[in-house]
């Protein structure tokens, strides 16, 4: 069970002076239960790719298939597929319109025809799996804190029971505590069998959280694979707009001095190998 994007390309404003290629032949596979990060600079095409996964955009060449079925433009099933791939936009709390948190979360499932007890069940499930306090359900979403609002936005997408969850910069604008809590929540959802696709420009979080990373630059795939592979590649081949995390830079500096350790090493390994090298151990 997976989403497969096969060699997709997309150009905005075709035939006008503002024509700009956003994706050039990008391929990606997302399995359920996997955490995939799409990283790149602003304008690298990462948000465009995310909108393809949710079928908001149709590739101008190449194909998207979901759970083994190729999605054709205008297909009757595209609505059903859109439900299976939930998309959480950047700053999702700016799309709130309802007077209560409950009504906000009910919006998506009721659009897919859930009514009465089923709807209530969907809301309750979404609330519990997103770690939201049920007491907040009758509050006005505009009165909540930043972290809580982000959670409500995610719950409002989870409520349609997607199998894949695509999030565009999910931690943008949150403070340290908010980021930590959100990361834990996404980890929990992934462990429950949901695929998490995170669009981000933060290489550090991508390297520490993902199973797979796709790096985009100007719409093309630069490197795609495990965090180890991506870290090795990026240290030698800088990509526009991506900052190598300081710890990775530090380790790469150690390697230049002759300490042989993997780039993605943890704190313990790093300290140990320095001490071994210095002959203290």
């Amino acid at each position, binding site marked *: 069970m997976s989403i497969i994007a096969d060699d997709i390309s997309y150009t905005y404003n075709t035939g006008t002076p503002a024509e700009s290629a956003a994706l050039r032949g990008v391929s990606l596979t997302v399995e359920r239960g996997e955490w995939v990060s799409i990283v790149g600079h602003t304008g690298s095409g990462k948000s465009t790719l995310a909108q393809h996964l949710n079928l908001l955009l149709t590739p101008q060449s190449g194909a998207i298939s979901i759970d083994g079925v190729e999605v054709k433009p205008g297909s009757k099933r595209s609505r059903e597929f859109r439900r299976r791939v939930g998309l959480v936009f950047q700053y999702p709390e700016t799309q709130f319109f309802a007077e209560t948190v409950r009504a906000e979360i009910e919006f998506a499932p009721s659009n897919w025809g859930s009514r009465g007890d089923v709807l209530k069940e969907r809301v309750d499930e979404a609330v519990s799996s997103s770690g939201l306090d049920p007491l907040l359900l009758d509050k006005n979403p505009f009165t909540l804190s930043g972290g809580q609002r982000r959670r409500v936005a995610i719950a409002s997408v989870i409520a349609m029971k997607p199998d894949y969850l695509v999030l565009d910069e999910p931690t943008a604008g949150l403070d*340290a505590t908010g980021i930590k809590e959100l990361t834990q929540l996404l980890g929990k959802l992934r462990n429950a069998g949901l695929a998490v696709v995170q669009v981000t420009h933060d290489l550090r979080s991508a390297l520490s959280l993902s199973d797979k990373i796709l790096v985009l630059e100007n719409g093309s795939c630069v490197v795609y694979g495990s965090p180890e592979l991506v870290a090795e590649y990026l240290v030698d081949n800088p990509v526009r707009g991506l900052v190598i995390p300081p*710890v990775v830079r530090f380790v790469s500096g150690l390697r230049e001095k002759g300490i042989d350790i993997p780039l993605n090493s943890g704190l313990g390994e790093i*300290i140990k190998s320095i001490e071994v090298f210095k002959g203290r151990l």
Partner: protein
Amino acid sequence: MEQNPIFSIRTAAFSYPGAEKPALDGVNLEIGQGEWLALVGANGSGKSTLAKICNALLTPTQGACFVMGLDSSVESNISSIRQSVALVFQNPEDQIVASIVEEDVAFGPENLGIPSDEIKKRVDRALSLTGLESYRRRGSYSLSGGQKQRLALAGALALEPKALLLDESTSMLDPEGRDSFLACLGELNNQGMTIVQITHRMEEAVQAGRIVVMASGRVVWDGLPTEFFDGEYLRWSFEEPPEIALYRELLTRSLVPPGTRPRVEELLSALCL
């Protein structure tokens, strides 16, 4: 030589109308000329309120705020305070008034009633300090996020301030934009500009010369970055970036000498491998 502080905040308190708890609760803070101060704290700790007080957008309900010796509660001081202290906000979209880059930079000086030749000079200077000269006739909407924020900075610089207040000004930027913005600040600080940088990103506080921590409307810690990153900040329940954890570990095991700053190149050379 004794210099006048740029900001002198004396037991300042502030409550928003209708709020239960005060946003500021007796803040004492002096910020000298040429300092780069990072003001850190969780959301709701009173950082932004303090910034607005320093810009005379708010007046303390108790205590006082003096900017370059001028009392901010005196109506006739407000204009000169806002000229000497410029504020850059979080979202560049909310600060850009005009559709063309140079016209936006000129907005501040035009409000001051300065003659047009002088405005032109100021706009030229602000654009070159922020590296936007080649964009001066471009539409502000066509800039990238980082460029937009540098435009907002240029708009602030055109007021020729003595100090810059940056309220989470990098939080909406990508790493590329953030780096170019911070590089710009570094350059300004070298030229003597006082910088008060409000941030919840630890990594950015590394660049500052002094760190002030706020919690529930009070200043709870004030000191040097080296002291701060050597474990102090953990008391204020901030998320610890891995590079800072590494830094502390290197210090506690005396792999690097005390006083080394938490920057990759400095640490690598201090290791003496």
